[in-house]
């Protein structure tokens, strides 16, 4: 897919690479036993190691290693049997050690790939360069006192996975799809809670522009974006800024930028003179990390069905479209709901598309309106399945099903009970329907004549009247067939 931006002199292509920082889902921190719980009182989850007390030493949390390996496997990536933790040295008030323990030359995970799916059914492969583990920093709080900055170290030392992509992304849209896909994979794997509002996923965006076919231009890095909306805004602003500079005959200066949410603009984080030299070197407090084959093999066996595999299953088994399948599988909870409907009601497998429609239209809309997550849906997969079964079994019409659906949501009752209580069972008895038709045709003789003289559009009128008379319960197909027969 080619996404070109129109400039004054030519078309431009945006080249984007992403560094995604995902917090590892783990009860304790990467190198200490302090809790990782979000939203606790400031500095209530800080061990002696996290506070960098004199003589304190990091000890690797094996669970975080498992999570990183699991994520690597989920990204179809190479797991490195040998990796090294390095120190990235810089001073900041919320970095107690004066260095961040990270992985530089030897990351735990090497090259991998992720597939993103477009609305039109096309897909694209985005290459992953590496995934490495590192410590999160604490938080500096500047807005509680006019002259003071407070430091909260609860986040200090929480494990992050930095997932670095090749510059394979070409638009804000692709970036949004890519982040969504990574988030989805991490959540299927249960290696990150995926909560962007709480900062569990943040991204640094590397961006440059070029004329199609040219070499890569000079890139700028926009740091620390934590919502897809802002990432899109930042990319759109920044690519336009770079194009304007180049079209005016200027040059792009390689720079680290921050995106201002209020102004919607990017601005340099620091000047060139202030550029950091991080002085990476292997952390002498930690031995190189060596993973045995068995360790990796055991984790491989824990890998659940991932979105791409599920998608393929939906396409192969249920003949769903690529797009429907990716909508369903984007969120594990949606896909789980869908799977449960078909698992409980195997006879619906041939009507999977109808189930999808009910989930993605009626269910989504009512859940969104009420701000309820699908995992807490008042309509269970079982009941939704029962409802769809009544439609496919010609027990009720789609229109009546919508009313039943509403009531299911409000009352938690089964659709069968609702239909029974309200007497909504569809009329399929030909004689009964014939009586209704006769009544309608009798009452509208003039229109019957019009129809017979060529006004075929009137068929809809007769159907509507007959349906009304049946209180919506007449089986539409039988009604239709009988009407045509009578009018011919």
């Amino acid at each position: 897919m080619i996404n070109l931006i129109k400039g004054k002199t030519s078309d431009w292509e945006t080249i984007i690479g992403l560094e995604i920082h995902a917090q590892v889902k783990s009860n304790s921190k990467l190198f200490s036993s302090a809790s990782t719980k979000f939203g606790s009182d400031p500095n209530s989850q800080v061990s002696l190691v996290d506070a960098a007390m004199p003589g304190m030493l990091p000890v690797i949390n094996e669970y975080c290693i498992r999570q990183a390996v699991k994520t690597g496997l989920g990204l179809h990536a190479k797991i490195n049997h040998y990796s090294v933790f390095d120190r990235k040295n810089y001073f900041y008030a919320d970095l107690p050690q004066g260095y961040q323990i990270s992985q530089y030359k030897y990351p735990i995970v090497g090259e991998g790939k992720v597939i993103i799916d477009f609305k039109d059914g096309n897909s694209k492969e985005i290459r992953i360069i590496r995934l490495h583990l590192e410590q999160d920093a604490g938080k500096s709080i500047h807005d509680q006192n006019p002259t003071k900055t407070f430091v909260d170290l609860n986040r200090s030392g929480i494990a992050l996975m930095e997932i670095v992509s090749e510059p394979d992304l070409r638009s804000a849209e692709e970036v949004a799809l890519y982040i969504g896909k990574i988030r989805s994979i991490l959540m299927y794997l249960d290696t990150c809670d995926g909560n962007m509002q709480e900062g569990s996923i943040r991204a640094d965006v590397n961006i440059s522009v070029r004329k199609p076919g040219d070499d890569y231009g000079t890139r700028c890095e926009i740091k620390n974006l934590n919502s897809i909306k802002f990432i899109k805004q930042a990319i759109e602003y920044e690519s336009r800024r770079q194009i304007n500079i180049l079209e005016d005959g200027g040059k792009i200066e390689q720079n680290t930028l921050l995106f201002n949410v209020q102004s919607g603009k990017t601005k340099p984080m620091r000047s060139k003179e202030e550029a950091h030299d991080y002085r990476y070197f292997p952390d002498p407090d930690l031995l190189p990390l060596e993973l045995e084959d068995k360790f990796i093999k055991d984790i491989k066996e824990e890998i659940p069905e991932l979105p791409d595999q599920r998608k393929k299953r939906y396409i192969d088994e249920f003949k769903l479209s690529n797009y429907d399948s990716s909508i369903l599988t984007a969120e594990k909870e949606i896909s789980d709901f869908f799977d449960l409907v078909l698992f409980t009601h195997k006879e619906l497998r041939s009507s999977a598309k109808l189930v999808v429609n009910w989930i993605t239209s009626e269910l989504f809309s009512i859940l969104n309106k009420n701000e309820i997550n699908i995992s807490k849906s008042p309509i269970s997969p079982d009941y939704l399945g029962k409802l769809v079964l009544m439609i496919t079994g010609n027990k009720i019409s789609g229109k009546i099903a919508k009313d039943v659906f509403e009531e299911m949501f409000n009352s938690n009752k089964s659709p069968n009970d609702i239909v029974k209580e309200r007497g909504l069972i569809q009329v399929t008895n030909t004689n009964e329907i014939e009586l209704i038709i006769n009544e309608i045709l009798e009452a509208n003789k003039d229109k019957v004549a019009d129809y017979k003289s060529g006004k075929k559009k009137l068929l809809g009128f007769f159907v509507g009247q007959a349906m009304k008379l049946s209180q919506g319960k007449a089986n539409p197909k039988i009604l239709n067939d009988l009407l045509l027969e009578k009018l011919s």
Partner: protein
Amino acid sequence: MEFITIKETAHKLKNKDISIHELYEIFIKRTNNNLDLNAYIYFNEEKIHQQLSAHSATTNLLNGIPIAIKDLFCTKSMPTTAASKILKDFQSPYESFVTQKLLNQGAIFMGKTNCDEFAMGSANTTSYFGNVINPLSSKDKPLVPGGSSGGSAAAVAAKLCLGATGTDTGGSIRQPASFCGIVGIKPTYGLCSRWGVVAFASSLDQAGIFANNVEDSALLMEGIAGYDPNDSTSANVNVPNYCQSINTDLAGKTVGIPSEYNVQGIPEEISIVWEKAIKKLESGGVKIKRISLPHTKYALPTYYIIAPAEASSNLARYDGVKYGFRSELFSSLDDMYELTRREGFGKEVKRRILIGTYVLSSGYYDAYYLKAQKVRKLIANDFENAFRECDFILTPTTPSAAFPIGDKEDDPIKMYLNDIFTVPASLAGIPGISIPFGKSNNGLPLGIQLLSKHFDEQTIFNVASFLEKNND
């Protein structure tokens, strides 16, 4: 009564020849009579009495024994300063693994001993709390005790305690032991936990022991060694009963004499002591093997790249934000860092932070740090090869006897040369012990150094014990 060795003192305590309170009256008095040595940064009689009143007698040999603790070990009952202004009022809320082990065995802490600031020095002259005087000095000409663990060495040599902990990064136990005429051992890297020890250079720092004789040093070594899951570089190995297992029958063993340690300009008195020790070993049935450690000459420059590099990062945490000294006058965060560290660190520490920062800088990393790591590997290989031909290695500990305070202060390189014989073993991570063996022309003690394979401390205790018994 003398009370110089642990064994003898433990015996007398057990037989009730002396009460523990009487014993500490003696040691407190000795300490008070020697305050001019400046061996302790923290000495508080009250703290000793508190420990005594909480004390209960056990059969452990270290029970009730007075031990001095280098002020690099974090202790809950006493402040921990690393001899730096930047930590001058620091009170640790935790006890280091090593000192906790000693406490568990009933040892009594006499106080926290003076040392070079963050263990950076070879003369104990960089301490914020002033220099330490070698107890063997004459009144008119004070000598250095060596460094960095100068206070611990002086305290043991002056009998202010029966043993002391030290840390050795490039010679900081063996060199002061040599200068003060006592025994000092740096065990294999990884034998003692570094947890709770203020870090200087993490890949080299190792806790060790000072004592008045080899047996006591073996006993204390047993007392502080052991695996600690909180130190990722701690080795999970069995700690033998060094003291009980000492065997001075060396017949059939081979000693390696490295030709490279016969450096140009080495004073004759050093060579004489070295030769004397070789002869003694020969008389004990030890085969003499002339060996080569070809990369020895690169050890000192290698050390002075790796150690400052690690230090520059390890000391970044002293920034005035969380604990320790913070400069009062600042107008911004960067300003606070600058002033805090400018005022809080001494000259030598700053020098090493600058060297370390430089060698890790982008564009210089490969030429310095990476190359130094490669050379370090070659030096370790030298030892590995040598130990295929010999059971242990014998060298002088230092290129000179203790020198007057003030000497070499104007030239850091001269000062660094003090560590020329001790640094290679540190880089290789192998154990080394220094024992007094002979005297200089001025009657000052000279040390001899014994090195062995990783985790083969027993061999050097055996040989050290043999030489101690045959030292005339």
